[in-house]
């Protein structure tokens, strides 16, 4: 794993050329290391160990590549704390409502409908719901807060929640 991270480091920092070859070799080494762990410890442990060890190995190279600079004196103006305008407060409140409770409800209902369409055993469908709800929720929250016109994701999510609710309970 450390060798794989080292090869990526060499190719991305342009210390090894040709970069594409070392880059490919780095990823292949990491994949091979993951495979050997899975072969030795089982697939579950092998994948988790890769997830744990790759960042630790990469951070080793990050630390060795650190550049310590002279601290810069930064002029920061003190300011008094004031409440934001009401319009801004309402906008943030609206974004919170859309990205947390509404997106949460829609992701639970929508994922349940989606799971029902999957040709899997019912416990596998339940596991899918449990694991996919936070993914769907996170994606919806991203969309709500990234779109300049929040009404677009807001309306879509509300319709999605309503349609999923009808599909489940009707």
């Amino acid at each position: 794993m450390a060798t794989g991270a080292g090869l990526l480091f060499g190719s991305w920092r342009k210390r090894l050329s040709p970069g594409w070859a070392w880059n490919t070799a780095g990823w292949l080494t990491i994949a091979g290391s993951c495979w050997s762990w899975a072969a030795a410890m089982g697939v579950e442990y092998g994948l988790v160990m890769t997830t744990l060890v790759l960042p630790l190995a990469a951070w080793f190279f990050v630390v060795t590549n650190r550049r310590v600079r002279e601290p810069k004196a930064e002029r920061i103006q003190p300011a008094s704390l004031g409440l934001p305008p009401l319009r801004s407060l309402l906008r943030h409140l609206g974004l919170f409502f859309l990205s947390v409770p509404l997106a949460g409800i829609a992701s639970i209902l929508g994922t349940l409908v989606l799971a029902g369409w999957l040709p899997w055993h019912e416990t596998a469908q339940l596991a899918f719901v449990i694991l996919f709800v936070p993914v769907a929720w996170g994606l919806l929250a991203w969309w709500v807060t990234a779109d300049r016109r929040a009404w677009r994701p807001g309306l879509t999510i509300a319709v999605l929640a309503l349609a999923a609710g009808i599909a489940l309970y009707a």
Partner: protein
Amino acid sequence: MALKLSSSLVRQSLSSHSWLGLMVGALMYAVCLSGTLAVFFPEFERWEQPYADEFRDYDPVALEQTFNQAMGNEVAVTPHMYLVLPTEEVPRARIANENESWFLTPGGQLGEKENNAWTEMLLDLHLYLHLPHSWGMILVSALGAILFGLVISGVFAHPRMFRDAFNLRLKGQRLLEQVDLHNRLSVWALPFHIMIGITGAYFGLALPILAVVSSAMYDGDRDAVIESVFGSEPVLEQQAGEFGIARALEQMPALAPGAEPLFITFHDAGEDSQQFGISAAHPGRLIYSENYLFDASGTFLRTDGFLDSEVGRQVVYSIYRLHFGHFFGLPVKIGYFLLGLALTVVSVTGINIWLARRKHRDRINDTWVAIVWGLPIGLVLAAISRFGWDAPTAGIVWGSILAACIPTFWLADEKRARCWLLNVLGATCIALVLVQFARYGSIVALGVAGVVNVLFIAFGVALLAFNLRRKQPALP
């Protein structure tokens, strides 16, 4: 190597990342810091009560006699009773009902009552943010979902993610330093952070999902949903009498070769339908355990079938170990601790970046320093209170954050305030060990308690030394 993303997508993702991060930053920090420490909660439990007997070998007959005798006498009977067996991770045996727990001696006799108030408070902070459990858990789970949103928005906000993956500029301009720390720690640990967010969301979302699934698909029968995943209890009659624990334990090596029995759960104790199950961990598997079910006399009935059941059940039953890193022993725990610490730093540097971008400072800067350093100080003070007066309250933790606002507001300078609070944290870590020593004596230097105390002292001394070595900013 750079991702080719449209500038509009990058800009909007950055805006989304900032908004979501600011919304949850402080809570995420509290959950991540407590979760990072909670990886070692079994060790903290052993540290909290260093005098409890530790042993691996036990006499099943003695355990059986003590359990049957204590039930209904010293130990009040509740619908579920537990006999926790000594394991490699926690070599202590306990008898517990749903509310209390008592240690057992190596001879199998009932010992002192368990008191893990500080560790429980730490877990309560991680699981519920010290809020009422029903909605505290949902709030914490929502943070798991938002963490996933943060990861995705962060990836799309950072097209130079791979090209910069090994850059780290320290000191210099504060904004660049914080950005580099934030990005380097988050990019490499991205799969781990996604896994922690998704598995963390499970604990609190399970109940609302269960409510919706049962009402929409199981005619409101929640038990049917739970049984479909976790299995059902056998229906038994005329099982009155004492539990045949020894007989069941003696069958375990044949029933589950190589497995480590963790604990025994007794259902409907004292009633005609009473029975029990031995939960045993199987090496090389992420599922929490396989459960071996017995009737009251110790006759083996069946297993819950987690080992070889459908993938869905195995996935759900693996989430606990996957989230807390409780598998494969200490190396994995250390890995989880380091990556959890990285996520904690990512939470802090995210807010620091927003503060540095503002180009002005106000009370928000001071409050943030108080939150970041007041929380660990509060956790240590709560432990001091636990050993000094048996009173580790959540109030001490939150009160410490409020108290930390006093110096930060007075100094109105993050660097000075941080320096001051780091000294307090270092001193309280050393004080904690001294208070525990005053209470329990030299036993706190032995075993796991000794290791934890050495780490507390080393951390405290390192903080104080680090601060002394730095150029001390003058007081205003």
